[in-house]
């Protein structure tokens, strides 16, 4: 197990470097950071002076080298716009995105698992098709469009839920539903497929032969086996939700990593963008590692293998 994890960490490091190079080049090739810093209505003379003072006219390789050298020593540098270090900036914004992604995942599971199980038990009936329909609609809707409609309906027309901001739990309900419903179909299909396969297996027939109530047969015996791949997928979905929250956070005015990334990209705050991309890459590697570990732990054949 150790060798396996070690290899993954090396891979992660190399991936992190690759990601940072791509991001760095992308942003520098893009618009002009000096102009972005000077802002609208600033004169060319001002822009040139800022370019000088921020050392933006040095060759890209030198600037990347400097960033990388400091990053390796754990210093992700400072935001060019915010009066804070990148690390601090990300840490203050992370809880919002984590809770959004977390609640999104919970909602995805709450939609996907029951629907998946019911669809599997009532295979190829109208129940199966409607369940699949409900889930697939989630994936077909543009999430910002769905978010705006929800604001319109629940926020404005009915006034049940707060519309923007991230102060209380209620603020996360609509964004989480928008985010969660999008990942529900993938989870649902996997659950359904898994359950269909497991329900036909011999040990389920044995469970019935033991006179166990249907609830126990389905939830204890069947689901316990069908859930293994779903757990692995959940961690990958959690990763997607982290990076996919850009649009949701813009619509619901949540001050999370997603919105920070969008803001940093649009004004070329490259240290922040670098920091976030590294964070997402790190999350991805950690989450896939978690998925493997979960797989091993959940499936005794691998755990004791």
């Amino acid at each position, binding site marked *: 197990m150790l060798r396996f994890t070690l290899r993954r960490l090396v891979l992660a490091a190399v991936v992190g470097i690759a*990601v940072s190079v791509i991001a760095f080049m992308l942003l520098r090739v893009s618009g002009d950071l000096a102009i972005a810093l000077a802002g609208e209505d600033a004169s060319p003379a001002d822009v040139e002076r800022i370019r000088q003072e921020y050392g933006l006219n040095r060759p890209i390789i030198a600037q990347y080298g400097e960033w990388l050298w400091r990053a390796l020593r754990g210093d992700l540098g400072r935001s060019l716009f915010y009066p804070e270090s990148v690390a601090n900036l990300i840490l203050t914004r992370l809880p919002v995105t984590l809770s959004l992604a977390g609640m999104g995942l919970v909602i995805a599971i709450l939609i996907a698992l029951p629907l998946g199980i019911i669809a599997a038990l009532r295979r190829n009936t109208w129940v199966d098709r409607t369940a699949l329909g409900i889930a697939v609609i989630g994936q077909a*809707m543009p999430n910002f469009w769905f978010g705006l409609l929800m604001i319109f309906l629940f926020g404005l027309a009915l006034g049940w839920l707060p519309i923007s901001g991230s102060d209380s739990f209620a603020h996360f309900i609509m964004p989480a539903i928008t985010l969660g419903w999008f990942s529900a179909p993938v989870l649902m299909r996997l659950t359904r497929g898994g359950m269909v396969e497991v329900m036909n297996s011999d040990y389920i027939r044995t469970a019935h032969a033991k006179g166990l109530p249907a609830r126990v047969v389905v939830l204890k015996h069947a689901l316990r086996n069908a859930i293994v791949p779903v757990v692995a997928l959940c961690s990958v979905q959690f990763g997607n939700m982290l990076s996919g929250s850009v649009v949701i956070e813009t619509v619901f005015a949540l001050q999370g990593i997603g919105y920070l990334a969008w803001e940093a990209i649009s004004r070329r705050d490259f240290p922040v963008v670098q920091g976030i991309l590294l964070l997402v890459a790190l999350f991805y590697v950690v989450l896939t590692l978690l998925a493997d570990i979960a797989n091993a732990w959940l499936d005794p054949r691998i755990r004791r293998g």
Partner: protein
Amino acid sequence: MLGSIPGSGGADMSDITLPQPAPPAIRRKRGRILGNPGLVVAALVLGLITLMAVFAPLVAPHDPYVQILDDRLIPPAFVDAEMSDPRYLLGTDNLGRDYLSRLIYGARISLLIGLLTVLVSGVIGTTLGVAAGYFGGRVDTVVSFLITTRLSLPVVMVALAVVAVAGGSLQVVVLVLGLLLWDRFAVVMRSATMQLRNLEYVAAARSVGCSTPRILLGEILPNLIPALVVVASYEMAQAILLEAALSFLGLGVQPPLPSWGLMVAEAKEVMLFDPWVILLPGLAICVLVLAINMLGDGIRDATAPEGRT
């Protein structure tokens, strides 16, 4: 099914032979396709949208680009009969352009983006996947590294960065999405190729001395088509949704080109008080993406029920 029983010795068999209906395999497969309503409906909807897109000039009542500023935001009849205008069946957008025509022309852009993106990502993903699956070894590790790097780059963020750089245009959006959505192709093709490679008939072809390209094209690729089509349908849906998200953030296709994603973004301004403007393109995207997904599901069930991706 069992063949008919051969005449055995002893008593005369004329009146004792047993009925032996044995339907050919083809009829059974077509049954599975027709039997699946989802697939049929999806194919119909997709066909309709494609026809609408191809014959847009004939079908659309007005020129989607002509704007009459005084005819702004006229609601369609089903929303507000009084204020509606018979010339504009689905009303007009915030620049006074006929909304139905823009939806029809918009189909073109969305389908185009979907198809071209899938073409680009399909080619990249399949070549990498098949190469990794077939050759294995170092090629496989390199491709796996590429996949992991791609997967750790968040799609939306990278799309934003690139499009913010190169400015949103159809070519840029397609290229960006194409370069970002190839990972699932690679993963699926890699595992499918690996399975195929170990099958006897591939080994047989190699032993007969076929050249590697002939094996790849002749033996492996044809068998990958079903899985390829299924992945293609998901990624096409994904591309259309991503284009809409990019347009929402102001970086998608450039106006006045009518893409559904852009129309949703433009309708955002007036959403609170003219909600129908944002509903129509949003629904259009929903229907198209739903049809594509269901088509993908249908094909997967019909061709390789066990090959669930």
